[in-house]
């Protein structure tokens, strides 16, 4: 248990205002600008507020929610969201792990390789999307050309007009940007695994795969739990990449919840309906985090 630094001297006085004074400016701003607006968003989601008449918005109860659940796009939006979240979390983890294993077993120029591999992380998201959009441009894109000459895709293939490849392009872009984070955290985790375990396994004749499955993976358990949670929360909330890539198209096939929220609120001029979709996104993300916390983090703490 933590105790006050000054426990000894302060024991006589009953109430110490110091911690409250220290925390209150930051907390006040966070509550004012982040927490209260969320409640206000829930309230807006029960009205027909639009961009032009939000002061005379009428109360419509849960209509926005029932409209969303019964609309034809509901299933599309939920499946696009789940595909994006699942795909980006799993692939970011796997690619980061591959990079970490490759670098961990490198003897020469380790620092150089490490610096190169994490560079994509430094690219601002808008630049990231512009660059990838240019590389897959159907007329002049370099990846279009490479996939054409290698015979993988028809020539001048338009990734973003195809309902499956649009999501593939979004995932590629997301993963290229995000894997350095999982790489760095997994590398840090690998440092904590005692070398003697590997030596002992070698003496017992274990091959590389068995060492990975029985020493590395279990040793990275805690990092993995935290990393997956972090990546999932980010993927649920990610807006910029999908928005700038496709704005949810073609025909809503990449309309994840965040993009669909923004489309309805600010492009279709329906703040109330948009807010309802945003609340659904928030609830899904909270539900997932709570479940995840119960199943994995609690287990980790009791170990």
């Amino acid at each position, binding site marked *: 248990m*933590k105790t006050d*630094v*000054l426990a000894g001297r302060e024991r006589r006085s009953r109430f*110490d205002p110091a*911690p*409250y004074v*220290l*925390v209150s*400016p*930051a*907390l006040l*701003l*966070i*509550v004012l600008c*982040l*927490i209260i*607006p*969320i409640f*206000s968003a829930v309230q*807006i989601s029960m009205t027909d507020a639009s961009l032009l008449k939000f*002061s005379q918005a009428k109360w419509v109860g849960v209509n926005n929610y029932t409209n969303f659940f019964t609309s034809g796009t509901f299933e599309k939006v939920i499946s696009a969201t789940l595909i994006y979240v699942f795909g980006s979390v799993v692939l970011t983890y796997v690619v980061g792990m591959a990079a970490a294993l*490759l670098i961990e077993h*490198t003897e020469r120029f380790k620092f150089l*390789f490490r*610096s*190169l*591999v994490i*560079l*994509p992380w*430094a690219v*601002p*998201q*808008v*630049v990231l999307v*512009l*660059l990838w*959009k*240019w*590389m897959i441009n159907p*007329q*002049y*894109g*370099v990846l279009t*050309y490479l996939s054409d000459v290698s015979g993988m895709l028809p020539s001048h293939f338009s990734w973003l007009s195809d309902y499956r490849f649009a999501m593939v392009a979004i995932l590629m872009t997301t993963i290229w940007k995000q894997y350095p984070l999982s790489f760095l955290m997994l590398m840090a985790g690998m440092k904590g695994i005692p070398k003697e375990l590997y030596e002992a396994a070698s003496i017992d004749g274990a091959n590389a795969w068995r060492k990975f499955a029985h020493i590395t993976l279990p040793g990275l358990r805690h990092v993995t739990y*935290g990393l997956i949670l*972090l990546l999932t*929360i980010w993927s649920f*909330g990610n*807006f910029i990449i999908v928005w*700038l890539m496709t704005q949810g198209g073609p025909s809503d096939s990449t309309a994840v919840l*965040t*993009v669909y*929220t923004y489309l309805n*609120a*600010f492009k279709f001029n329906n*703040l109330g309906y948009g*807010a309802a979709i*945003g609340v659904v996104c*928030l609830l899904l*993300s909270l539900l997932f985090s709570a479940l995840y916390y119960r199943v994995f983090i609690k287990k980790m703490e009791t170990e």
Partner: protein
Amino acid sequence: MRIAKKSLHYLLLVMFCIIAIFPFYWLIITSAQPIDSLFKYPPLFTAQSNLLDNYYRYIGESEILVWLGNTFGVSLAATLISTLLAIPAAYSISRFMYKGRTLVIFIVLLTQMLPLVLLIIPIYILFSYLHITDNIVALILLYAVITMPIGIWFLKGFFDSIPKALEEAAIIDGCSRFQALTRILIPLLAPGIIATATWSFIVAWDEYLFAYTLIDSKHLFVVSVGLSSYIGQYSTEWNEIMTGAVLATLPIVILFMYFQKYMISGLTAGSVKG
């Protein structure tokens, strides 16, 4: 066998590095391409003009310097406010036990789950009501608040890693608690503070949603909004977009290379340990 294994390993490693680096190469090549060699198929793999020609022209003809200046000013101001308020808050939840501490931690972590796209709806309404849309100062305040929770969490990790005995010793030697904080803790925490501030700066530099929704005047654009405004114009001049993109990326890459090790310690201090 060993040699075969080793060469396979380096082959994979080099392939990985090519995937990581090639888009950067393409970004730079495109930014230096004159417009007529841009629209070629197959694409040209080397730049056809002097690297800096496009840059001189583009900087002179566009508003990029204004946008970069706005972004720099907004990010710096937001980082200062955010870090200055995060330090005492992190100190409070790291060093004191008090009623409500768990609630504070819960609120700080909860903010990370709020989709910003939902948040922007009430904020847009509030700002329109107060007539502070299209206002840089309001944007600074928002960025400061968005980066604050993560800053508090990073700094809490750094505070936790410094033994309390140091402060106790200073207090026994006659320091006040405030002096113990400013003279003992803050200097020890300098790397952590730098890491946190760098992180906040990068997040603010990267931000798009709020600036895109709240700012209308072109001369108040931040660089992310400015660059994205080129998409969908009649002729998309990709070499100019990429020139702007390089200029928007360069400061972050430099910052990133320079503060790499601090930032990594920030991530591992704050989040891995939980």
